[in-house]
C-alpha cells in the first residue's frame, strides 16, 4: 500500500530536502547551496556546517543568486538555490530563463511555501503563479512536492543527474505523510494513490492531502474515486492522464495555484490534444491573504467537505 492513513509526517519536508542534498554533496564535491538570507527558514545551516566552502548565504538577492549559480555552473559546480516561492519565481524569472534554462546550466531552485502554505506571510508571499511561469520554459522541470519521502527521493534524483533548470516547490512543514519510506518515484510519472472510476482527482503538493480527504468523503457517499499525484508538472505524465480520462466518468484538477497556468492547465492541454473530455478545474482565482493554513483551506473552499460538495455539484 502506498498511502498511509492519516499519519502526521514527523519529518519536515525541508529537513528531507537538506538530508538529500547533503547525501549527494558527500559524494559529489561540485554540489553547492546558495541561500538568500533565509537560512533559518530553509534549514540550510546544516549544509553550511557540513560544507562551509560550498555554502553561500548571499543576502536578499534572488536575481543574483540565480546568476551566481549559473556562473558556478560555468566552472562545473551544481547549485541548489533557495528562497521563498514568490521570490524564487516571480523575482528572478528572467535570470532562471536566460542564465539557466536557455544557457543549459544545471540549477535546482527550491521555492518554499508556495500557494496558501505561506499562511501568515499573506498575499504578498502567496505564490499562485510560479507553476505557470516555469511551466512555460523549455529545458525545465517543475515539481510540486507533497511529503518528506517524496522530497528526499526527488532531490537525490535531481542532484545525481542535474540537467537544465529545475524548480521544486514545497511547503516547509508538511500536513501528513502520504508515502511509505521505501516508496520510489520516477520523474515525469504520476502516481495513482487511490483507485476508482467514478471520479478522478488530480493533485500535487499540499493538495494531495486535500484530494485524499475529498476522496474519503465521496467514497462514503458511494462514489469510487481515483486520486493521482502529479508531482512532476513538467514534463507531465500524459499516459496516466489519458488513461484516467478513458476510464473515469468525471475529472477534477486541484491547484494550490491560480487556475490559469497551473496543474489543471497542464492536464487540460493533454486532454485537448489526446482525449477531449470535460475537466473540472479547482484552484485560486484571486490573490492570497493572511491566515493559518487550515483557515486558508476553508477560505478558498479547499477543505475535503467543501471540495466534495463542489465536485458532486459539477457531476
Amino acid at each position, binding site marked *: 500500500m502506498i498511502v498511509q492513513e492519516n499519519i502526521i509526517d514527523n519529518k519536515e519536508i525541508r529537513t528531507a530536502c537538506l538530508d538529500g542534498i547533503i547525501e549527494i554533496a558527500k559524494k559529489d564535491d561540485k554540489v553547492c547551496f546558495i541561500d538568500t538570507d533565509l537560512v533559518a527558514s530553509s534549514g540550510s545551516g546544516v549544509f553550511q556546517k557540513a560544507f562551509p566552502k*560550498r555554502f553561500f548565504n548571499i543576502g536578499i*538577492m534572488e536575481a*543574483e543568486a540565480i*546568476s551566481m549559480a549559473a*556562473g558556478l555552473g*560555468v566552472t562545473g*559546480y551544481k547549485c541548489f538555490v533557495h528562497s521563498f516561492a514568490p521570490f524564487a519565481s516571480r523575482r528572478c524569472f*528572467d535570470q532562471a530563463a*536566460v542564465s539557466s534554462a536557455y544557457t543549459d546550466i544545471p540549477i535546482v531552485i527550491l521555492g518554499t511555501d508556495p500557494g496558501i502554505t505561506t499562511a501568515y506571510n499573506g498575499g504578498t508571499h502567496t505564490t499562485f503563479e510560479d507553476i505557470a511561469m516555469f511551466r512555460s520554459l523549455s529545458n525545465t522541470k517543475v515539481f510540486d512536492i507533497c511529503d518528506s519521502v517524496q522530497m528526499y527521493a526527488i532531490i537525490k534524483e535531481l542532484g545525481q543527474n542535474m540537467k537544465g533548470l529545475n524548480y521544486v516547490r514545497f511547503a516547509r512543514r508538511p500536513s501528513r505523510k502520504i508515502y511509505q519510506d521505501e516508496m520510489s518515484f520516477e520523474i515525469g510519472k504520476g502516481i495513482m494513490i487511490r483507485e476508482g472510476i467514478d471520479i478522478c482527482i488530480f493533485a500535487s503538493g499540499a493538495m494531495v492531502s486535500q484530494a485524499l480527504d475529498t476522496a474519503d468523503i465521496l467514497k462514503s457517499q458511494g462514489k469510487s474515486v481515483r486520486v493521482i499525484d502529479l508531482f512532476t508538472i513538467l514534463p507531465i505524465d500524459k499516459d496516466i492522464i489519458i488513461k484516467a480520462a478513458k476510464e473515469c466518468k468525471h475529472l477534477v484538477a486541484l491547484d494550490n495555484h491560480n487556475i490559469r497556468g497551473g496543474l489543471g492547465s497542464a492536464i487540460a492541454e493533454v486532454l485537448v490534444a489526446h482525449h477531449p473530455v470535460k475537466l473540472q478545474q479547482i484552484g485560486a482565482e484571486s490573490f492570497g491573504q493572511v491566515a493559518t493554513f487550515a483557515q486558508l483551506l476553508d477560505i478558498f473552499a479547499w477543505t475535503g467537505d467543501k471540495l466534495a460538495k463542489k465536485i458532486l455539484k459539477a457531476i
Partner: protein
Amino acid sequence: MTTEKFAHKIRYYTIDMIIHMGFGHIGGALSIVDCLAVLYAPKEGLLKIDPKHPRWDERDYFVMSKGHAGAALYATLASRDFFDLKILHTLNQPGTILPSHVDRLKTPGVDMTAGSLAQGFGASVGIAIGARLKNKNQKVYCIVGDGELNEGQCWEAIQVAAHQKLNNLIVFVDDNKKQLDGISSDICEAFDFVQKFDAFGWNAIRVDGHDHQQLREQILKAHEQSKPTVIVMTTIKGKGIEFLENINDHHLRIDTDEKQELLNNAKKYYAKKAEL
C-alpha cells in the same frame, strides 16, 4: 603581435562584419576593442587561454556582459583562431554560431551567455567563486556597459563580489556615456562610477579605455589586490571611425552610400594598420 596591432585587426574585422550585415551594434563594439586587444592579443595579451581547447579547465574566463557587443568579441576570437575568420560573415544570419548577443552554447570561446543585461556580470561573480573553489589561480574578466549599470542586479553582484573578496574578478566598465536612447546622463545620471564602486568595497580606478599601457598596468595591479577590481574605462562609442564617434546611433544601419563609403574607408585604413 603588439596589442595595438591586434586592436587594428579587431577593428578591421568588426567593421567588415557590420558592413557585410548592413547593420549592427558597432558603436558599443568599437569602444571596447582596446580592452579586448590587451586581454586577447597573441603573446602580449594577458588572458590565459587555449584557442584549440576553448573549454580548457585552467583557462582564465571572460564574460561579455554587454552581450550586444558580440561582434567585437567574435572578431577577437576569430583572430585568435577559436574559429575560422570566414564564419564572421555569418553574423546574425539564420543558423549562425555568431548570434547578435553572445551565447556560450553556440560560439567557441564564449564563456557565458549574455544579452539580458546584468546577468553576465552576475554570473561572473559565480564564475570567480567557482574558480576560487577550484584553487587554480584563474582570473575572471568581465566587460559591463555603463548603461548596463542601470540594472539593479549589477549592484547585487557588486555587493556579493565585495563581500566574497573576489580578488580574481576584474570588471571593466565601458564608460562611453551613451546608451540606446542617447546620452546616459540625460536618461539616468550615474554619477562617478569610481566613487560608487569604491564605496561598495572594490578596488576602483579610471583609465583611458583606449590607452593600452594604462589598461595593461591596471590589470596587472589588480592581480595583486585582496578585493575585486573595477577598471572604469573612459571610452568613445564608435572609437576609430570618426563619423561614428559623433553620433548617437546605438544600432547603426548602413542605409546611405555616404555611410557605406566611410565604413569602407575605415576598413581599408585598419587593414593597412593591421598589415592584413
